[in-house]
């Protein structure tokens, strides 16, 4: 296996792209996908460190992160559908009122 720094560097680049996606894009679904990308880059770092240290804890943690991501996506997309019903748009710039 290559030195673990390679994988951490790649993970950092992917995380930065995800963060840029959250900041740049206005489509709330794409913002959501960028969040998934960031979670995924954290998973890559976990797996790389698990392999480097030779302990299984990192892989188990990735398993739990995937569960949390699945739960988060289900609730988040339901929120987006609800917002779309009232605003007829998923542009984050349109979501500027707390009620209705």
């Amino acid at each position, binding site marked *: 296996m290559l030195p673990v720094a390679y994988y951490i560097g*790649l993970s950092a680049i992917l995380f930065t792209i995800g963060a840029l996606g959250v900041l740049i894009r206005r489509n709330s679904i794409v913002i959501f996908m*960028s969040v998934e*990308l960031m979670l995924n880059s954290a998973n*890559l770092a976990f797996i790389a460190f698990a392999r480097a240290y030779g302990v*299984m804890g990192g892989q188990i943690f990735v398993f739990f992160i995937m569960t949390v991501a699945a739960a988060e996506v289900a609730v988040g997309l339901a929120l*987006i559908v609800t917002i779309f019903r009232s605003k007829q748009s*998923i542009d984050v710039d349109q979501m500027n009122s707390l009620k209705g």
Partner: protein
Amino acid sequence: MTIDLILFLILGLTAIATALGMLFSRNAVYAALFLILNFCTVALFYLLLDAPFIALTQVTVYAGAIMVLFLFVIMLLGAEQTASVPSTWWVQRTPLFLGAVLLVEIIAIIYNQRDRLPVVAPPSAAFGTPTSVGEILFNQYLLPFEVTSILLLVAMIGAIVLSKPKA
């Protein structure tokens, strides 16, 4: 150049290219497809890192279930495109600046800590097999595993309640 390095470079460039493709594609459906390709590439990285169980979970749960849910919602709402809002120059420039700062910070931290990074040792024969994952998951991490089921139940009820049309 060893075969490991060549594989890493090809896969790494694919991962970064697909992530950038997701970031810059105008159409949300294309963004989702780019992200699926990115998840598959990362799954190949997991295979390289002796985590076959996690790699297959990645393909089925992430690239399969989660992204299908995304595509379903995009097509349900018919919201592939959002109208591009003309924004002021600092709204466009500031994210790029913040992203560059974040990347430089992370790289600097990795560089400073490079002596403390673990030295890679050859893993034991059972490392990463589904058997060993199951053994640890159902012995050492049994309680978190059960709590996960409650989390999924709450998310399911939450999604149903949220998307139910108001009577």
